[in-house]
Protein backbone atom coordinates (compact mmCIF):
# COMPACT_ATOMS: atom_id res chain seq x y z
CA UNK A 1 0.00 0.00 0.00
CA UNK A 2 1.35 3.41 -0.92
CA UNK A 3 -0.17 6.61 0.40
CA UNK A 4 1.06 10.03 1.37
CA UNK A 5 1.93 10.57 4.99
CA UNK A 6 4.45 12.28 7.18
CA UNK A 7 6.81 10.60 9.61
CA UNK A 8 6.19 11.47 13.26
CA UNK A 9 9.22 12.23 15.35
CA UNK A 10 10.27 9.79 18.05
CA UNK A 11 9.26 10.75 21.62
CA UNK A 12 12.13 12.15 23.67
CA UNK A 13 13.15 10.02 26.65
CA UNK A 14 13.92 12.35 29.55
CA UNK A 15 14.87 11.15 33.07
CA UNK A 16 11.51 12.43 34.35
CA UNK A 17 9.41 10.45 31.94
CA UNK A 18 11.69 7.41 32.42
CA UNK A 19 10.75 7.54 36.11
CA UNK A 20 7.08 7.89 35.17
CA UNK A 21 7.41 4.88 32.89
CA UNK A 22 8.96 2.80 35.66
CA UNK A 23 6.10 3.71 38.00
CA UNK A 24 3.60 2.87 35.28
CA UNK A 25 5.20 -0.53 34.64
CA UNK A 26 5.07 -1.27 38.36
CA UNK A 27 1.33 -0.56 38.33
CA UNK A 28 0.88 -2.80 35.28
CA UNK A 29 2.70 -5.59 37.14
CA UNK A 30 0.30 -5.18 40.06
CA UNK A 31 -2.62 -5.69 37.66
CA UNK A 32 -3.90 -2.10 37.65
CA UNK A 33 -6.16 -2.00 34.59
CA UNK A 34 -5.90 1.77 34.22
CA UNK A 35 -2.13 1.36 34.00
CA UNK A 36 -2.56 -1.21 31.21
CA UNK A 37 -4.61 1.33 29.32
CA UNK A 38 -2.15 4.15 30.01
CA UNK A 39 0.79 2.07 28.78
CA UNK A 40 -1.18 1.16 25.68
CA UNK A 41 -2.17 4.77 24.99
CA UNK A 42 1.41 5.95 25.40
CA UNK A 43 2.89 3.53 22.88
CA UNK A 44 0.17 2.25 20.58
CA UNK A 45 0.72 4.81 17.82
CA UNK A 46 4.33 3.93 17.21
CA UNK A 47 3.75 0.19 17.56
CA UNK A 48 0.84 0.35 15.10
CA UNK A 49 2.85 2.47 12.65
CA UNK A 50 5.78 0.07 12.86
CA UNK A 51 3.56 -2.97 12.22
CA UNK A 52 1.90 -1.11 9.35
CA UNK A 53 5.22 -0.16 7.78
CA UNK A 54 6.45 -3.74 7.96
CA UNK A 55 3.28 -5.42 6.71
CA UNK A 56 1.59 -2.81 4.52
CA UNK A 57 -2.01 -3.67 5.39
CA UNK A 58 -4.32 -2.17 7.97
CA UNK A 59 -5.88 -5.51 8.88
CA UNK A 60 -2.51 -7.12 9.60
CA UNK A 61 -1.18 -4.04 11.39
CA UNK A 62 -4.19 -4.16 13.75
CA UNK A 63 -3.81 -7.86 14.44
CA UNK A 64 -0.10 -7.59 15.08
CA UNK A 65 -0.45 -4.50 17.29
CA UNK A 66 -3.03 -6.35 19.39
CA UNK A 67 -0.78 -9.38 19.51
CA UNK A 68 2.16 -7.19 20.59
CA UNK A 69 0.28 -5.70 23.54
CA UNK A 70 -1.34 -8.97 24.65
CA UNK A 71 2.09 -10.61 24.67
CA UNK A 72 3.67 -7.62 26.38
CA UNK A 73 1.07 -7.56 29.17
CA UNK A 74 1.44 -11.31 29.60
CA UNK A 75 5.23 -11.06 29.83
CA UNK A 76 5.56 -7.79 31.76
CA UNK A 77 6.88 -9.72 34.79
CA UNK A 78 9.86 -10.67 32.65
CA UNK A 79 10.62 -7.08 31.61
CA UNK A 80 13.76 -6.25 33.57
CA UNK A 81 14.04 -2.62 32.54
CA UNK A 82 17.43 -3.08 30.88
CA UNK A 83 16.05 -1.24 27.89
CA UNK A 84 13.33 1.38 27.59
CA UNK A 85 9.79 0.00 27.55
CA UNK A 86 9.22 1.39 24.02
CA UNK A 87 12.29 -0.50 22.78
CA UNK A 88 10.96 -3.68 24.37
CA UNK A 89 7.54 -3.16 22.76
CA UNK A 90 9.14 -2.43 19.39
CA UNK A 91 11.20 -5.59 19.58
CA UNK A 92 8.03 -7.61 20.25
CA UNK A 93 6.27 -5.81 17.39
CA UNK A 94 9.14 -6.51 14.96
CA UNK A 95 9.27 -10.13 16.09
CA UNK A 96 5.53 -10.81 15.68
CA UNK A 97 5.46 -8.92 12.36
CA UNK A 98 8.41 -10.81 10.87
CA UNK A 99 7.01 -14.14 12.06
CA UNK A 100 3.69 -13.36 10.41
CA UNK A 101 5.38 -12.21 7.18
CA UNK A 102 7.47 -15.39 7.09
CA UNK A 103 4.36 -17.50 7.59
CA UNK A 104 2.54 -15.64 4.82
CA UNK A 105 5.54 -15.90 2.52
CA UNK A 106 5.63 -19.68 3.00
CA UNK A 107 1.91 -19.89 2.39
CA UNK A 108 2.13 -17.62 -0.64
CA UNK A 109 4.96 -19.68 -2.09
CA UNK A 110 2.69 -22.72 -1.91
CA UNK A 111 -0.39 -20.99 -3.33
CA UNK A 112 0.82 -18.21 -5.66
CA UNK A 113 -0.94 -18.52 -8.99
CA UNK A 114 1.07 -18.21 -12.18
CA UNK A 115 -1.11 -15.34 -13.44
CA UNK A 116 0.13 -13.19 -10.57
CA UNK A 117 3.71 -13.48 -11.81
CA UNK A 118 2.63 -12.66 -15.34
CA UNK A 119 0.77 -9.53 -14.23
CA UNK A 120 3.91 -7.55 -13.30
CA UNK A 121 3.85 -4.49 -15.57
CA UNK A 122 6.87 -4.01 -17.78
CA UNK A 123 6.15 -0.47 -19.04
CA UNK A 124 8.40 2.39 -17.95
CA UNK A 125 6.82 4.43 -15.14
CA UNK A 126 6.08 8.06 -15.83
CA UNK A 127 4.59 9.19 -12.53
CA UNK A 128 5.71 9.38 -8.92
CA UNK A 129 3.04 6.93 -7.56
CA UNK A 130 4.02 4.32 -10.16
CA UNK A 131 7.67 4.82 -9.27
CA UNK A 132 6.78 4.30 -5.62
CA UNK A 133 5.03 1.06 -6.51
CA UNK A 134 8.22 -0.05 -8.25
CA UNK A 135 10.23 0.95 -5.22
CA UNK A 136 7.87 -0.92 -2.88
CA UNK A 137 8.18 -4.06 -5.00
CA UNK A 138 11.98 -3.75 -4.82
CA UNK A 139 11.84 -3.18 -1.05
CA UNK A 140 9.79 -6.36 -0.67
CA UNK A 141 12.53 -8.28 -2.44
CA UNK A 142 15.19 -7.19 0.08
CA UNK A 143 16.45 -9.70 2.65
CA UNK A 144 14.31 -9.60 5.80
CA UNK A 145 16.79 -7.76 8.06
CA UNK A 146 17.80 -5.30 5.38
CA UNK A 147 14.17 -4.50 4.63
CA UNK A 148 13.31 -4.11 8.32
CA UNK A 149 16.15 -1.64 8.89
CA UNK A 150 15.26 0.31 5.74
CA UNK A 151 11.57 0.60 6.65
CA UNK A 152 12.33 1.52 10.26
CA UNK A 153 14.92 4.17 9.32
CA UNK A 154 13.96 5.70 6.00
CA UNK A 155 10.20 5.18 6.15
CA UNK A 156 9.35 5.47 9.84
CA UNK A 157 12.19 7.68 11.08
CA UNK A 158 13.71 5.43 13.76
CA UNK A 159 17.30 6.30 14.70
CA UNK A 160 20.06 3.70 14.30
CA UNK A 161 20.26 3.57 18.09
CA UNK A 162 16.56 2.67 18.34
CA UNK A 163 16.78 0.14 15.52
CA UNK A 164 19.84 -1.50 17.05
CA UNK A 165 18.12 -1.81 20.43
CA UNK A 166 14.89 -3.17 18.93
CA UNK A 167 16.59 -5.75 16.71
CA UNK A 168 19.31 -6.71 19.17
CA UNK A 169 22.15 -5.70 16.81
CA UNK A 170 24.86 -3.01 16.96
CA UNK A 171 24.39 0.46 15.52
CA UNK A 172 27.12 -0.38 13.01
CA UNK A 173 25.09 -3.34 11.75
CA UNK A 174 22.03 -1.13 11.42
CA UNK A 175 23.98 1.46 9.38
CA UNK A 176 25.59 -1.21 7.21
CA UNK A 177 22.23 -2.84 6.51
CA UNK A 178 20.71 0.52 5.58
CA UNK A 179 23.54 1.24 3.10
CA UNK A 180 23.15 -2.25 1.72
CA UNK A 181 19.39 -1.79 1.32
CA UNK A 182 19.84 1.54 -0.47
CA UNK A 183 22.48 0.08 -2.77
CA UNK A 184 20.34 -2.93 -3.64
CA UNK A 185 17.37 -0.67 -4.33
CA UNK A 186 19.47 1.51 -6.61
CA UNK A 187 20.54 -1.57 -8.57
CA UNK A 188 16.95 -2.84 -8.70
CA UNK A 189 15.71 0.53 -10.00
CA UNK A 190 18.66 1.22 -12.31
CA UNK A 191 16.56 1.06 -15.46
CA UNK A 192 14.41 3.90 -14.12
CA UNK A 193 17.41 6.12 -13.27
CA UNK A 194 16.08 9.00 -15.31
CA UNK A 195 13.00 9.03 -13.08
CA UNK A 196 14.83 9.42 -9.81
CA UNK A 197 17.52 11.68 -11.24
CA UNK A 198 14.90 14.11 -12.58
Amino acid at each position, binding site marked *: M*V*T*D*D*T*VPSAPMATPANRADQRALIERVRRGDSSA*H*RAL*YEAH*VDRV*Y*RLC*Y*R*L*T*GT*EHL*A*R*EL*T*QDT*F*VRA*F*GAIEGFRGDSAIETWLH*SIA*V*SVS*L*NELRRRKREHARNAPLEEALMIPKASPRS*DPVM*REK*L*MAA*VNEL*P*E*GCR*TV*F*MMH*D*AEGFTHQEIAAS*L*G*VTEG*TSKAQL*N*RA*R*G*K*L*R*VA*LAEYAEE*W*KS
Partner: protein
Amino acid sequence: MNDRIDFGPDDDMPPMSDAEFDAWLTRVAPKLNAPSATPRGEMWKVIETAARTSSDAQAGRIPGVTPIRRHWRLLSLIAAALLIGVGVDRMALRREREQRVAATPAATVPARADSADPSGLYRLAAAQTFTQAEALLVAYRASDAPGRDPQDLRQLGSWGRQVLSSTRLLLDSPAGRDPQLRALLDDLELVLVQIIRHSGAPLDTTDRALIDRALQDSRLLPRIRTAVPSPIPADASSD
Protein backbone atom coordinates in the same frame (compact mmCIF):
# COMPACT_ATOMS: atom_id res chain seq x y z
CA MET B 1 17.04 -11.26 18.69
CA ASN B 2 19.49 -10.78 15.81
CA ASP B 3 19.82 -14.54 15.40
CA ARG B 4 16.18 -14.67 14.38
CA ILE B 5 16.42 -12.04 11.64
CA ASP B 6 17.66 -13.00 8.21
CA PHE B 7 20.05 -10.32 6.93
CA GLY B 8 20.86 -12.34 3.80
CA PRO B 9 24.33 -13.30 2.53
CA ASP B 10 27.15 -10.76 3.01
CA ASP B 11 28.83 -11.46 -0.32
CA ASP B 12 26.43 -9.43 -2.42
CA MET B 13 27.38 -5.91 -1.32
CA PRO B 14 26.11 -3.38 -3.87
CA PRO B 15 28.26 -0.52 -5.26
CA MET B 16 29.05 2.67 -3.32
CA SER B 17 26.19 5.00 -2.41
CA ASP B 18 24.78 7.60 -4.77
CA ALA B 19 23.81 10.91 -3.15
CA GLU B 20 21.19 11.67 -5.77
CA PHE B 21 19.45 8.33 -5.35
CA ASP B 22 19.68 8.48 -1.56
CA ALA B 23 18.08 11.95 -1.59
CA TRP B 24 15.22 10.68 -3.76
CA LEU B 25 14.84 7.64 -1.51
CA THR B 26 14.70 9.78 1.63
CA ARG B 27 11.94 11.83 0.03
CA VAL B 28 9.89 8.87 -1.21
CA ALA B 29 10.42 6.25 1.53
CA PRO B 30 8.10 7.89 4.10
CA LYS B 31 5.27 7.34 1.61
CA LEU B 32 5.80 3.56 1.50
CA ASN B 33 3.25 1.56 3.51
CA ALA B 34 2.18 4.84 5.09
CA PRO B 35 -0.08 4.02 8.04
CA SER B 36 -3.70 5.08 8.37
CA ALA B 37 -4.91 6.66 11.63
CA THR B 38 -4.42 4.31 14.60
CA PRO B 39 -7.72 2.55 15.46
CA ARG B 40 -6.97 2.90 19.18
CA GLY B 41 -10.41 2.16 20.63
CA GLU B 42 -11.18 -0.89 18.49
CA MET B 43 -7.79 -2.47 19.15
CA TRP B 44 -8.02 -1.79 22.88
CA LYS B 45 -11.33 -3.68 23.15
CA VAL B 46 -9.74 -6.80 21.68
CA ILE B 47 -6.60 -6.48 23.81
CA GLU B 48 -8.60 -5.96 26.99
CA THR B 49 -10.83 -9.00 26.32
CA ALA B 50 -7.86 -11.23 25.49
CA ALA B 51 -5.87 -10.07 28.53
CA ARG B 52 -8.88 -10.52 30.84
CA THR B 53 -9.65 -14.03 29.56
CA SER B 54 -6.06 -15.05 30.08
CA SER B 55 -5.79 -13.59 33.60
CA ASP B 56 -9.23 -14.98 34.58
CA ALA B 57 -8.09 -18.43 33.52
CA GLN B 58 -4.87 -18.11 35.49
CA ALA B 59 -6.72 -16.86 38.56
CA GLY B 60 -9.29 -19.67 38.38
CA ARG B 61 -12.20 -17.28 37.87
CA ILE B 62 -13.58 -19.27 34.92
CA PRO B 63 -15.85 -22.11 36.02
CA GLY B 64 -14.48 -25.46 34.98
CA VAL B 65 -10.99 -24.19 34.22
CA THR B 66 -8.46 -25.14 36.87
CA PRO B 67 -5.47 -22.84 36.78
CA ILE B 68 -2.00 -24.33 36.93
CA ARG B 69 -0.66 -22.73 40.09
CA ARG B 70 2.97 -22.21 40.96
CA HIS B 71 3.40 -25.55 42.76
CA TRP B 72 1.74 -27.37 39.86
CA ARG B 73 4.12 -25.64 37.50
CA LEU B 74 6.97 -26.86 39.66
CA LEU B 75 5.53 -30.39 39.69
CA SER B 76 5.12 -30.35 35.93
CA LEU B 77 8.73 -29.21 35.56
CA ILE B 78 9.84 -32.08 37.80
CA ALA B 79 7.69 -34.49 35.78
CA ALA B 80 9.26 -33.23 32.55
CA ALA B 81 12.75 -33.57 34.04
CA LEU B 82 11.91 -37.15 35.13
CA LEU B 83 10.60 -37.90 31.67
CA ILE B 84 13.84 -36.68 30.12
CA GLY B 85 15.85 -38.68 32.68
CA VAL B 86 13.90 -41.84 31.93
CA GLY B 87 14.33 -41.16 28.22
CA VAL B 88 18.09 -40.78 28.49
CA ASP B 89 18.28 -43.92 30.65
CA ARG B 90 16.26 -45.92 28.15
CA MET B 91 18.41 -44.64 25.33
CA ALA B 92 21.55 -45.79 27.15
CA LEU B 93 19.97 -49.20 27.86
CA ARG B 94 18.94 -49.56 24.25
CA ARG B 95 22.46 -48.74 23.02
CA GLU B 96 23.89 -51.30 25.42
CA ARG B 97 21.37 -53.89 24.20
CA GLU B 98 22.14 -53.07 20.57
CA GLN B 99 25.85 -53.45 21.20
CA ARG B 100 25.20 -56.87 22.78
CA VAL B 101 23.02 -57.88 19.86
CA ALA B 102 25.64 -56.67 17.36
CA ALA B 103 28.18 -58.88 19.09
CA THR B 104 25.91 -61.92 18.41
CA PRO B 105 26.14 -62.54 14.62
CA ALA B 106 22.98 -64.63 14.23
CA ALA B 107 20.64 -62.12 15.95
CA THR B 108 18.43 -59.72 13.99
CA VAL B 109 17.16 -56.40 15.42
CA PRO B 110 13.93 -54.95 14.05
CA ALA B 111 14.25 -51.30 12.94
CA ARG B 112 12.09 -48.86 14.95
CA ALA B 113 11.82 -45.18 15.79
CA ASP B 114 13.88 -43.95 18.74
CA SER B 115 11.13 -42.82 21.07
CA ALA B 116 13.59 -42.28 23.96
CA ASP B 117 14.99 -39.06 22.50
CA PRO B 118 13.67 -36.31 24.88
CA SER B 119 12.82 -33.84 22.12
CA GLY B 120 11.32 -36.70 20.16
CA LEU B 121 9.15 -37.61 23.15
CA TYR B 122 8.09 -33.99 23.51
CA ARG B 123 7.18 -33.79 19.82
CA LEU B 124 5.26 -37.05 20.10
CA ALA B 125 3.28 -35.70 23.08
CA ALA B 126 2.70 -32.42 21.18
CA ALA B 127 1.51 -34.32 18.10
CA GLN B 128 -0.96 -36.33 20.22
CA THR B 129 -2.27 -33.15 21.85
CA PHE B 130 -2.64 -31.42 18.48
CA THR B 131 -4.50 -34.42 17.08
CA GLN B 132 -6.91 -34.22 20.03
CA ALA B 133 -7.18 -30.44 19.66
CA GLU B 134 -7.94 -30.71 15.95
CA ALA B 135 -10.70 -33.22 16.62
CA LEU B 136 -12.08 -31.02 19.40
CA LEU B 137 -12.12 -27.88 17.24
CA VAL B 138 -13.84 -29.73 14.42
CA ALA B 139 -16.42 -31.01 16.94
CA TYR B 140 -16.83 -27.47 18.24
CA ARG B 141 -17.58 -26.22 14.72
CA ALA B 142 -20.11 -29.00 14.26
CA SER B 143 -21.79 -28.09 17.56
CA ASP B 144 -23.26 -25.07 15.75
CA ALA B 145 -25.77 -27.35 14.01
CA PRO B 146 -29.40 -26.69 15.05
CA GLY B 147 -31.06 -29.11 17.43
CA ARG B 148 -27.85 -30.33 19.07
CA ASP B 149 -28.21 -31.83 22.53
CA PRO B 150 -26.89 -29.45 25.29
CA GLN B 151 -25.23 -32.56 26.75
CA ASP B 152 -22.93 -32.52 23.70
CA LEU B 153 -21.73 -29.05 24.66
CA ARG B 154 -20.98 -30.19 28.22
CA GLN B 155 -19.01 -33.13 26.83
CA LEU B 156 -17.15 -30.71 24.59
CA GLY B 157 -16.23 -28.70 27.70
CA SER B 158 -15.00 -31.75 29.57
CA TRP B 159 -13.00 -32.87 26.56
CA GLY B 160 -11.63 -29.33 26.21
CA ARG B 161 -10.39 -29.42 29.83
CA GLN B 162 -8.37 -32.56 29.10
CA VAL B 163 -6.80 -31.01 26.02
CA LEU B 164 -6.15 -27.79 27.96
CA SER B 165 -4.28 -29.74 30.67
CA SER B 166 -2.05 -31.38 28.05
CA THR B 167 -1.51 -28.03 26.34
CA ARG B 168 -0.40 -26.42 29.60
CA LEU B 169 1.93 -29.26 30.44
CA LEU B 170 3.54 -28.85 27.04
CA LEU B 171 3.79 -25.09 27.58
CA ASP B 172 5.50 -25.62 30.92
CA SER B 173 7.91 -28.29 29.74
CA PRO B 174 11.54 -27.19 29.41
CA ALA B 175 11.77 -29.34 26.27
CA GLY B 176 9.35 -27.03 24.47
CA ARG B 177 11.65 -24.22 23.42
CA ASP B 178 10.59 -24.02 19.78
CA PRO B 179 9.09 -20.48 19.50
CA GLN B 180 6.68 -21.47 16.71
CA LEU B 181 5.38 -24.42 18.68
CA ARG B 182 5.01 -22.22 21.78
CA ALA B 183 3.07 -19.58 19.82
CA LEU B 184 0.74 -22.30 18.54
CA LEU B 185 0.26 -23.71 22.06
CA ASP B 186 -0.41 -20.18 23.41
CA ASP B 187 -3.10 -19.59 20.78
CA LEU B 188 -4.59 -23.04 21.38
CA GLU B 189 -4.74 -22.39 25.13
CA LEU B 190 -6.64 -19.14 24.59
CA VAL B 191 -9.25 -20.72 22.32
CA LEU B 192 -9.68 -23.75 24.59
CA VAL B 193 -10.29 -21.49 27.58
CA GLN B 194 -12.96 -19.63 25.62
CA ILE B 195 -14.65 -22.87 24.55
CA ILE B 196 -14.61 -24.27 28.09
CA ARG B 197 -15.87 -21.00 29.50
CA HIS B 198 -18.99 -21.22 27.34
CA SER B 199 -19.53 -24.97 27.46
CA GLY B 200 -22.02 -24.95 30.35
CA ALA B 201 -24.85 -23.56 28.27
CA PRO B 202 -25.74 -23.16 24.59
CA LEU B 203 -23.64 -20.38 23.05
CA ASP B 204 -25.32 -17.16 22.05
CA THR B 205 -24.29 -15.66 18.73
CA THR B 206 -21.89 -13.12 20.30
CA ASP B 207 -20.00 -15.77 22.27
CA ARG B 208 -19.71 -17.98 19.23
CA ALA B 209 -18.66 -15.06 17.03
CA LEU B 210 -15.86 -14.23 19.50
CA ILE B 211 -14.57 -17.81 19.52
CA ASP B 212 -14.91 -18.07 15.75
CA ARG B 213 -13.00 -14.82 15.35
CA ALA B 214 -10.21 -16.08 17.61
CA LEU B 215 -10.08 -19.31 15.62
CA GLN B 216 -10.03 -17.44 12.33
CA ASP B 217 -7.51 -14.77 13.34
CA SER B 218 -5.03 -17.23 14.75
CA ARG B 219 -5.61 -19.68 11.85
CA LEU B 220 -5.53 -22.34 14.51
CA LEU B 221 -6.84 -25.32 12.59
CA PRO B 222 -4.53 -24.93 9.56
CA ARG B 223 -1.55 -24.39 11.88
CA ILE B 224 -2.45 -27.45 13.94
CA ARG B 225 -2.79 -29.49 10.77
CA THR B 226 0.65 -28.29 9.66
CA ALA B 227 2.09 -29.18 13.07
CA VAL B 228 0.83 -32.77 12.75
CA PRO B 229 2.56 -33.83 9.53
CA SER B 230 1.79 -37.53 9.57
CA PRO B 231 -0.32 -40.02 11.50
CA ILE B 232 1.18 -41.12 14.82
CA PRO B 233 2.10 -44.81 14.81
CA ALA B 234 -0.12 -46.78 17.15
CA ASP B 235 2.84 -48.33 18.97
CA ALA B 236 4.99 -45.17 19.07
CA SER B 237 4.44 -44.49 22.75
CA SER B 238 4.90 -48.03 23.95
CA ASP B 239 8.24 -49.73 24.33
